């Protein structure tokens, strides 16, 4: 039989994408669809005294203008059930520049724009808060009624004071990161219409079932009255997990019962969608002379901006991952997430781990230099192995490939003698930096199941039904490869029905690098159930007990007498004749244990991905310009279902990591369009060596874990540590942009 797993199978979306025929959110159109455009707040914090739409309504082409009063259900949404604090259309207050206060439906965009200008909103400005630490001080104006602290998270293990008193060296530093923009090339967009008593929304999204549920909630409808169909989605990176156009489209269709469309301009996308949380991370790390860590104490303050979105998940993940992939006996981590009147922050590739990895890997690098230990060796001394216990008290019993990843990058670094700094010249210095990471697959200590169905058809083909959103990362192909391998049916004989809430069930979000592991397992489970159905039918047909039957090579055999067999598709024909569909329903929820609210002890994730990266960088000390020359990244993915796609994710992560390390910073009120925000171009990419490490995860489909977010995480630390190696200055505030690098260099010169 041909293998479909572990092979570089051509992606199933290949042709549509090469031809440009795939339709994304902004490409969706229905003849006569009305245009929607939101009126947004110019103030960061203000009370709404009144909204006057009368003049706007008289504009030719305007069909209807909606305000909060038109929202029939709960005017609050948010991805995490316990923190739904965002209004679709602001009712009493606006909390950031860009908060929507009204929605215009018009025959054309020009009229909609005119109407938006003519809507008069009377505001009473309130003092605004721009700093998360300021926000948590007593007596500050409240951004939300419940207070300015969104949530906190704590991990306590061992005796932190004892850990420091046993240390030979203690390193204390503060690290900061910036707000980042996802900048998916596709801006948010979609259409909606009314059909069969349902509101249908076709949009670009990472999370169709969540969209359906929150839109239904906003509209006071039961979820089955809303159907969300995921169209081509041009990148997400976490930015399309929250609802954007979906809520507005739902509201307009609810009232107008006619087709509408909404597409964000790049500027609107910048202004109003989620950002990466900036974190302030205060680290105190203790170690013995031999490099062994004795204690890690971390204080984290995050800025979630105006709304919660994924803030809770980000602070939990940051605290859980704060030690890095290392054994530490004594740990104390305290994380707080505060509201401010700045653009709201949500999920972005890595949920807080890219930020925290920058900090813990900087600490490791400082220790290595202070103790005069090779930076890779100090990580090897401390790295998790099978049997290690994490800060949350979780014992890692299998698939712990961190050491392997370190060996791999050491091999590359030494093979090419990167440490020899070849190519240095006056004013331009070369350095080599290392970064490692661990990343828990799936959501943190909460149920996050996926479901799937697999159906067999009498013509020898199959259908895979999944709610898992394909956003470019490749889940369509990966899930089909898994189904194909498990069923023994060629991949081109399996049809995919994906991301339509009417025909597929909830697979959870395409986030947390979870679709291969969790939805892959749901696919596996559905085929287990499918086989049970087939065996039950075969049992009747063959007059043998099910327990005596096995499925192999497209047939069902008797274990006792292999001459007795029946073709599975014969069984399908029989079942179909009896009006029974042969469809297996599968589910997988990773086994986790909720974290204790006081100590953070528990099992936050069923499995972790591990990775290490070494990057070679060149620093121009006259200008502060940094060029990444080479990079080798080794990722333990458990098992690469499609090695080519895994390697593609690794180069992808390096690109985004270069942006995060060196140039990306969303400055509220200043960053308005692409010209104010830099992302790496083809010219900024180093030579990349992607390395796959496969320490199989026994609970994963064919041993697989995940790679989407891990790909990014070790990059920024490797680059920052490389800068130190090159010129001896330590950047503690990302990005290491020109001014920061020059500033540190001048400080060093001065000293």
């Amino acid at each position: 039989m041909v293998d479909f797993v572990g092979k570089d199978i051509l992606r199933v979306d290949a042709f549509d994408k090469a031809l440009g025929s795939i339709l994304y959110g902004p490409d969706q159109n229905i003849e006569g669809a009305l245009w929607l455009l939101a009126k947004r707040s110019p103030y960061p914090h203000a009370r709404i005294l009144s909204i006057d739409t009368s003049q706007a309504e008289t504009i030719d082409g305007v069909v209807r203008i909606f305000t909060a009063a038109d929202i029939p259900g709960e005017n609050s949404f948010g991805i995490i059930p316990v923190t739904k604090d965002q209004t679709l259309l602001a009712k009493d207050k606006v909390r950031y520049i860009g908060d929507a206060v009204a929605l215009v439906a018009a025959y054309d965009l020009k009229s909609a724009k005119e109407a938006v200008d003519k809507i008069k909103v009377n505001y009473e400005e309130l003092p605004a808060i721009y700093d998360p630490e300021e926000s948590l001080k007593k007596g500050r104006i409240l951004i939300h009624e419940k207070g300015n602290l969104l949530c906190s998270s704590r991990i306590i293990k061992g005796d932190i004071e004892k850990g420091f008193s046993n240390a030979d060296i203690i390193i204390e530093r503060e690290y900061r990161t910036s707000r980042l923009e996802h900048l998916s090339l596709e801006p948010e967009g979609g259409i909606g219409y009314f059909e069969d008593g349902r509101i249908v929304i076709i949009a670009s999204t990472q999370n169709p079932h969540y969209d359906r549920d929150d839109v239904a909630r906003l509209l006071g409808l039961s979820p089955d009255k809303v159907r969300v169909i995921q169209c081509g989605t041009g990148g997400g990176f976490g930015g399309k997990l929250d609802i954007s156009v979906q809520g507005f489209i739902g509201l307009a269709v609810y009232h107008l019962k006619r087709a509408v469309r909404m597409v964000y301009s790049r500027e609107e996308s910048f202004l109003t969608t989620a950002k990466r949380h900036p974190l302030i991370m205060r680290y105190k790390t203790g170690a013995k002379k031999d490099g062994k860590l004795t204690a890690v104490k971390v204080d984290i303050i995050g800025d979630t901006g105006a709304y919660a979105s994924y803030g809770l998940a980000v602070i939990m993940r940051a605290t859980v991952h704060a030690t890095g992939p290392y054994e530490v006996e004594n740990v104390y981590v305290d994380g707080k997430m505060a509201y401010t009147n700045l653009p709201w922050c949500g999920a972005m590739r890595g949920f807080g781990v890219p930020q925290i990895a920058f900090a813990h890997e900087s600490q490791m690098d400082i220790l290595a230099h202070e103790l005069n230990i090779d930076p890779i060796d100090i990580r090897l001394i401390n790295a998790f192995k099978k049997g290690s216990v994490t800060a949350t008290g979780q014992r890692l019993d299998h698939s712990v490939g961190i050491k392997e990843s370190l060996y791999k990058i050491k091999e590359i670094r030494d093979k090419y003698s990167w440490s020899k700094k070849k190519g240095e010249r006056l004013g331009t210095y070369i350095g080599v930096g290392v970064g490692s990471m661990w990343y828990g697959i799936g959501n943190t200590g909460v149920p996050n199941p996926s479901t799937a169905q697999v159906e067999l058809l009498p013509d020898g083909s199959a259908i895979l039904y999944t709610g898992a959103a394909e956003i470019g990362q490749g889940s369509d192909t990966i899930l089909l490869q898994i189904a194909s391998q498990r069923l023994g049916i060629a991949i081109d004989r399996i049809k995919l029905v994906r991301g339509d809430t009417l025909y597929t069930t909830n697979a959870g979000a395409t986030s947390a690098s979870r679709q291969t592991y969790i939805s892959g397992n749901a696919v596996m489970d559905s085929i287990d159930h499918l086989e049970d159905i087939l065996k039950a039918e075969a049992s009747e047909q063959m007059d043998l007990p099910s327990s005596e039957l096995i499925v192999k090579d497209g047939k069902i055999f008797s274990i006792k007498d292999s001459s007795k067999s029946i073709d599975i598709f014969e069984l399908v024909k029989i079942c179909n004749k009896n009006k029974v569909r042969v469809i297996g329903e599968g589910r997988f929820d990773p086994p986790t244990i909720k974290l204790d609210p006081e100590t953070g002890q528990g099992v936050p994730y069923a499995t972790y991905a591990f990775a290490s990266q070494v990057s070679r960088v060149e620093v121009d000390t006259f200008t502060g310009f940094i060029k990444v020359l080479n990079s080798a990244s080794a990722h333990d993915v458990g098992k690469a279902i499609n090695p080519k796609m895994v390697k593609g994710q690794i180069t992808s992560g390096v690109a985004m990591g270069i942006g995060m390390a060196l140039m990306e910073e969303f400055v509220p009120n200043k960053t308005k369009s692409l010209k104010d925000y830099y992302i790496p171009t083809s010219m900024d990419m180093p030579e990349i060596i992607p390395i796959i490490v496969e320490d199989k995860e026994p609970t994963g489909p064919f041993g697989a874990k995940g790679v989407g977010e891990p790909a990014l995480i070790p990059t920024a630390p490797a680059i920052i540590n490389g800068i130190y190696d090159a010129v001896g200055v330590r950047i503690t505030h990302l990005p290491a942009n020109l001014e920061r690098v020059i500033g540190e260099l001048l400080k060093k010169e001065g000293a």
Partner: protein
Amino acid sequence: MRDFEYIAPKTVKETLDVLDEYQEDCKIIAGGQSLLNILKQGLMAPEYIIDIKNLEELNYIKFDEKDGLKIGATTTHRSVEFSDTIKEHYNVLSEMERHLATVQIRNWGTIGGNLCIADPTGDVAPPLLAMDATVIIANKDGEREVTVLDFGVDYYETVVGPNELLTEIRVPVIPSNTGIAYLKYRIVEGDAPIVGAAVAFTLNEKGACKKARIGMGGVAPIPIRAEKAEKMFEGEKITDTLIEEAAKVASEETTPIPDIVASAEYKKRVIGVYVKRAAKLALTRAEKAAN
């Protein structure tokens, strides 16, 4: 973008007549690579757009040993980049064009448009300043020649009047024993430079500096020359030390505008670095030309 009336004259004469008629109510578009963004943002809302993009009369690159180079205003960046004439006699312009914005922008944008939009970070002006280039500005009644140095008035503002059209860029013949280099500093390829420096050195028979020109972009409301630094070279043997000192002086001649990318102090620092680097390269080239 606001609606406008669209007029695409067929000749320069016709263009000048139309300009004379509509004056302040109209705006000229050539490639529109900057202007369209300005219109989209509503920063400008002219009643008439006069389209000269396809005015073939102004699409030329001519050279003769007496008058030097003449480039028609609607010549695209790509045409300048690939012109054999320019590669042979004014290679610095070809080098500059190769890294101006992106291929897409160079294919549609024009050299005249780049000058007229008067973005202080524009790539075209600094090397033209280093070569004492001039432009021809025409109106219905005639034309005038203005140096590139006098062309800019302020941030996004030039001496071109409402009834006038920039028709041609002229670059004098490059004297023998001359080396010219343009280097710029930017965060990512394709983006506007933070600063740019063009340096031209002409050496005398003894190898000392006969004439120096330093054009700088991104460090003042308009492209400027570092005239004090230039004077430091003249008559002197150019050494690394002299370059170092002159670069400092050049940096002091700037008045950069801070923006989201860089502070004024940073730009001041980096222009010094780039004047220095461009000077070293220009010197190498001049020495090579002299040998």
